[in-house]
């Protein structure tokens, strides 16, 4: 098994004799780990270092003598004590191991030749290493229907199951979704779901990875390869910004599996299913392999020379102040830096924004003192959670938060307009009216609670939560993010700055969702920003030295760029893996903006809605198709590796930037490879200092290294003015879910089946008042537009609020949202 023993810091060393050899271990650590760290591997099936031991399989029994004579004990449950003597391989232990293997194989079908696990199977391996070699069992094995589907992606073969409790423990303990369990008794014990309740968990794929036999298999990988045919590299998942470490496994130049790697500061070996199976989209038949060029109403395939020619022509003809670049969070750090340098240093425009109006201003993200996941989840921490639903947007971060609460006594005060996946783990969960987050947060951190409450939260709840928050003092950790796409980012900024002002020691983790959004911002792909968190003012000298040119004036953000484009003021709009027509919260503005730009150049892997509206579409390499580095939402830089070749003539984004620069008469300074770009960034940006390629490549730093997070300088901004709501309207919340109509997900077979239909969620009281029951058809209208949707009565939505999920089929929340408005009030009518 690929699991590593639990990490331990030896503070109270004890001496233990293992097979006659004295080893030093930490007092109280588990014997199985102490032995493994010191070179004695004890076989096991049920023990997993990231879950509570259960001592179920009995394979790890060893003879332990703690002074009362030797006795067989499960080493996964025995803490080491000083002077303990352990025999791991004597005759009695070997006899037990023989017995366990023989027992496990009694009912195991031995269909290894057709089993996905064969070749990487702990049961197979340990049977070879420890078993008696032959079985004395001549009776009939137990039989079950095989395999049964327990979720969209996971299949269960109960005959192969050895009942180790790993998957069931994972579901209960780690994911908090005990949807699979043991049923029946004795040799008829089996793992199964409850009737009519599939194992519908965002984390179900982890059970496949930790299954010690081939009982759980994943649909996307079944019968695709044998383990010995696989090649692998270690890399980082870029599907969201958590940056889980993974191994990318391929066979015949095709990625066919991602496995989680136990990166201690990040993902602890877990992955969400979206990340685990995200590679599937790369092989989609819709993948762009050749450049596309517009001929009238048609896009036709063309050659790179022609496509680049047209692009250069358009750029040359354009006023630099009429060139804009939207996107960049899908790119590697190097590509993002190349594009930032091309836009700001060569072309000379500051209209760049890696975020699509769904994030937070870069000055704030990069100007607040940063906290890591480990710091947020440190035992006993107090976490003020002002971010989006972590289960939907940053799933593995949710697992870390859940662990912190369940096992490490951390306490979360959640302030969110609607209930989230985190709510049940929160010590307090407050529901401000949309737009009034800052009012509530000010009361929380100052303790000045107005009588009658604030922002829609009642006084007692606010007072109790405030005590929790203030008890933490300067150790407070704050998670901020964009909770509501129908509300301006300003309200979150106001709240974050209020915390900073009231609690000087507080540290912030910015929970932005998109893959490498942090890396793109740190590379300078934001209006008014230069790489390394410098603003145009603070970094002007430094970056003028490095680049030769820096724009004079602050440019526009995505909303500004789209508005300008809509007014015909943008000549060239470059979309760096961005699909504003789908992702920008205000649908109308996105349409007018993309249509109004004179020339649209899209760099993408897929013919997205926006790419199909472009004049030139350049196919680019995606995850696992190029080398580079990635920065996760903490500011942790890790290495991305290429495993397969990009399809067709697709190229890396940085190569395109470098070539454009040359043809525009500039030079990005790349002669051979992307590392030159990184080295330039590291050499120039103080926050990147020291993170050279050589350092990042050191295997000891495989988990990634942090940028300098001791930031300050988030500017004081004018508080966002939120209009009062009227009694007839509901205030809209638009939030994101893990499975939506995203470009990659739409091209992943099973993921399309996991996408819910869109619906309007209403609180119980409002639904009653309007006479609406779940399933009723309603018309929702705002000042921007209206739509029709089925209604869902949802107890997690407070009175006065209505909830839509972003980018689901059937309901396009974007038509209601106005990018220029602080909040979005809607009327709901039956029919």
């Amino acid at each position, binding site marked *: 098994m690929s699991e590593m023993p639990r990490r331990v810091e030896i503070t109270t060393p004890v001496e233990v004799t293992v097979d006659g050899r004295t080893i030093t271990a930490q007092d109280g650590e588990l014997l199985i780990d102490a032995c493994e760290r010191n070179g004695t591997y004890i076989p096991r099936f049920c023990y997993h270092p990231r879950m509570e031991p*259960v*001592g*179920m*399989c*009995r*394979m790890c*029994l060893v003879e332990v003598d703690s002074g009362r004579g030797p*006795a*067989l004990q*499960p080493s996964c*449950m025995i803490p080491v004590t000083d002077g303990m003597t352990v025999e791991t391989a004597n005759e*009695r232990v070997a*006899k*037990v191991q*023989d*017995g*366990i293997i*023989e*027992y*496990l194989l*009694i*009912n195991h079908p031995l269909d290894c030749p057709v089993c996905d696990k064969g070749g990487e199977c702990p049961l197979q391996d340990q049977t070879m290493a420890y078993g008696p070699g032959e079985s*004395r*069992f*001549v*009776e009939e094995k137990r039989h079950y229907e095989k395999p049964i589907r327990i979720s969209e992606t996971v299949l269960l073969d109960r005959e192969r199951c*050895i*009942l180790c*409790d790993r998957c069931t423990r994972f579901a209960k303990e780690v994911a908090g979704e005990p949807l699979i*369990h*043991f049923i*029946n*008794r*004795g*040799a*008829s*014990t089996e793992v199964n779901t409850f009737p009519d309740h599939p194992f519908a968990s965002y984390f179900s794929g982890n059970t496949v990875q930790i299954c010690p036999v081939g009982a759980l298999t994943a649909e996307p990988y079944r019968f695709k390869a044998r383990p010995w045919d696989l090649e692998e590299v270690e890399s980082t998942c870029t599907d969201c910004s958590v940056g889980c470490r993974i191994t990318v496994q391929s066979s015949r130049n095709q990625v066919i599996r991602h496995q989680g790697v136990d990166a201690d500061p990040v993902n602890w070996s877990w992955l969400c299913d979206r990340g685990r199976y995200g590679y599937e989209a790369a092989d989609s038949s819709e993948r762009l392999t050749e450049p596309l060029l517009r001929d009238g109403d048609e896009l036709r395939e063309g050659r790179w020379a022609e496509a680049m020619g047209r692009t250069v022509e358009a750029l040359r003809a354009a006023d630099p102040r009429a060139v804009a670049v939207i996107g960049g969070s899908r790119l590697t750090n190097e590509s993002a830096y190349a594009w930032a340098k091309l836009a700001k240093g060569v072309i000379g425009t500051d209209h760049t924004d890696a975020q699509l109006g769904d994030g937070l201003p870069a000055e704030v993200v990069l100007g607040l003192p940063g906290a890591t996941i480990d710091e947020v989840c440190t035992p006993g921490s107090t976490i003020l959670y002002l971010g989006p639903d972590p289960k939907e947007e940053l799933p593995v971060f949710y697992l870390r938060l859940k662990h912190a609460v369940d096992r490490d006594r951390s306490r979360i005060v959640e302030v969110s307009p609607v209930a989230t996946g985190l709510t049940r783990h929160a010590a307090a969960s407050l529901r401000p009216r949309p737009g009034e987050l800052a009012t509530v947060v000010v009361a929380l951190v100052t303790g000045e609670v107005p009588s009658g409450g604030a922002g829609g939260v009642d006084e007692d709840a606010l007072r109790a939560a405030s005590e929790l928050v203030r008890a933490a003092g300067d150790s407070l950790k704050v998670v901020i993010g964009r909770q509501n796409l129908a509300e301006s980012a300003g309200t979150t900024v106001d709240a974050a700055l209020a915390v900073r002002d009231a609690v000087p020691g507080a540290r912030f983790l910015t929970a932005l969702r998109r893959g490498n959004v942090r890396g793109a911002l740190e590379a300078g792909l934001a209006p008014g920003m230069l790489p390394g968190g410098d603003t145009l003012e603070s970094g002007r000298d430094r970056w003028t030295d490095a680049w030769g040119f820096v724009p004079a004036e602050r440019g526009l953000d995505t909303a500004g760029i789209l508005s300008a484009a809509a007014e015909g003021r943008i000549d060239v709009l470059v979309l760096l893996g961005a699909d504003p027509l789908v992702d920008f919260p205000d649908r109308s503005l996105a349409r007018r903006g993309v249509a109004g730009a004179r020339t649209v150049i899209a760099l993408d892997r897929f013919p997205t809605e926006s790419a199909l509206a472009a004049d030139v579409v350049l196919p680019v390499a995606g995850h696992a198709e190029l080398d580079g580095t990635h920065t996760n939402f903490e500011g942790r830089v890790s290495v991305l590796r290429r495993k397969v070749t990009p399809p067709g003539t697709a190229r890396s984004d940085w190569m395109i930037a470098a070539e454009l620069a040359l043809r525009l008469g500039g030079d990005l300074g790349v002669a051979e490879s992307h590392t030159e770009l990184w080295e330039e960034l590291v050499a120039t940006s103080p926050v990147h200092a020291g993170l050279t390629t050589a350092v990042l490549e050191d295997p000891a730093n495989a988990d990634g290294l942090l940028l300098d997070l001791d930031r300050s300088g988030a500017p004081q901004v004018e508080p966002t003015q939120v209009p009062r709501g009227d009694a007839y309207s509901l205030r809209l919340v638009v939030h994101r879910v893990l499975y939506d109509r995203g470009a990659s997900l739409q091209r992943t077979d099973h993921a399309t089946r996991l996408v819910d239909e869109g619906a309007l969620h209403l609180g119980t009281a409002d639904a009653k008042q309007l006479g609406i029951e779940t399933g009723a058809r309603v018309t929702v209208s705002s000042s921007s537009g209206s739509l029709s949707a089925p209604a869902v009565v949802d107890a997690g939505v407070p009175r006065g609020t209505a909830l839509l999920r972003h980018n689901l089929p059937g309901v396009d929340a974007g038509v209601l949202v106005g990018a220029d408005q602080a909040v979005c009030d809607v009327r709901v009518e039956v029919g």
Partner: protein
Amino acid sequence: MSARPDPKPSAANPTAPGVPAIVSSRFGVEGAHTLDGYRSSGSYPGYESLRAALEMSPAEVGATVKDATVLGRGGAGFPAGVKWGFCPEGVWPRYLVINGDESEPGTYKDRLLMERDPHQLIEGCLIAAYAIGVAQVFLYVRGEMAHAQERIAAALNEAYEAGLVGRNILGTDFSVDIVLHWGAGAYIVGEETALIESLEGNRGMPRLKPPFFPAAKGLYMAPTVVNNVETISNLPWLLHHGVDAYRAVGTESSPGTRLVAVSGHVNNPGVFEIPQGVTTFRDLFESDLYCRGIRNGHELKMFIPGGGSAPWLFPEHVDLPLEAKVVGGEGSMLGSGAIIVMDETTDAVKACLRLTRFFARESCGKCTPCREGTSWAEKILQRILDGNGRPSDLDLLLDVGDNISPGPYPVASDASQGLEAVPYPPRQTTICALGPSSVAPMTSAIRRFRDEFEAKIVRRDPIPVRSEPIVEGSTLTPVDHAAPEAAGHV
């Protein structure tokens, strides 16, 4: 309330001359299960012991129980007073859990205590709760015992109404709630940590000790005392009559009486209250007071002294006293006081299969050796009985047992074979004792009655021949392993 009559109203069996009926005094009394009946019958006045206890300090009550050496009657025989002292000081809340999940094959004494004298149990609970300092008692009653559940529920209602349970009991500041919990019918839940899991709403599977010693980390991870029904039912009599009267019965190391439930081939099976440590099995089987001899003049072949989990004893062991240490030294155990008597008409192989099958079906499925080993053993035994045994099967059975309970397994001495006893308890590769218990019938039967097994193994190493095709619709002829030449390998 159930109008169902007691299945055997005359269940009252007399105790030996001079021996008080400590727990069974109301077994034969009509209506003793009601509050009025409890107060007006029996060997002590109902709920007066509670009143006396509440006038003492909790520590004094604890000391009384400790001084009297009230041994646990669930099987392990550990002194209750000492067990109570294992709760860590100053850790609250703590819980008292009464184990009424009596499921050991052959045991039915707690059932009578719960059906016939529920108030005695409730009063015992209250006394124990007062001594230990708990405010919440859980009475876990086996799922199948519907009658006991109804009786206890009715008694609890009466007791609550009379102010004997609940807030400010008998006008004091002592308050305690007793919750009746119905099991779902799993043998393993008789094991205390599995019972706690079940009580918490989980699947009943044992927890590993350490770290989950109930006294430290029990129900809801709080300190928990788990006591047997009979143990707790001793307390009212003890509090009324005092330590000296209690210790006057039985022996120095095993004072008081205990209930034994005798079943099988005797003329008068039933539950008897006998003084601990002095009565011999011969007394029990033959005395007119108790079993009145082996059934219809047959001869004793073997008996199980402590429920299905206990290794078997044989006619030469009938003069052993019912004393835990003596029986343990002789390779068996008294356990929960379930004695199963078998005469010479019993087929040892079938008896062995019957017991093994029980353990195979009741294994909770947690530990590999127990889950797989017990069902494998059942299959081998069934195969032998089906006429498909192989000579090697007997050693295989013993080795299957050895992989559940490694090393010499407890077994009685056998002078005829010149074999010495291996004392109790067995070693185990499993978390709880269910696995090793399943080995007892196999080891006992094969060691003593090897000839009976061998008689059933008529053919040489046959493997069962399937009469139907291996795969439906297949034309493959099943291979007859009994004739290796035919299969093409010699």
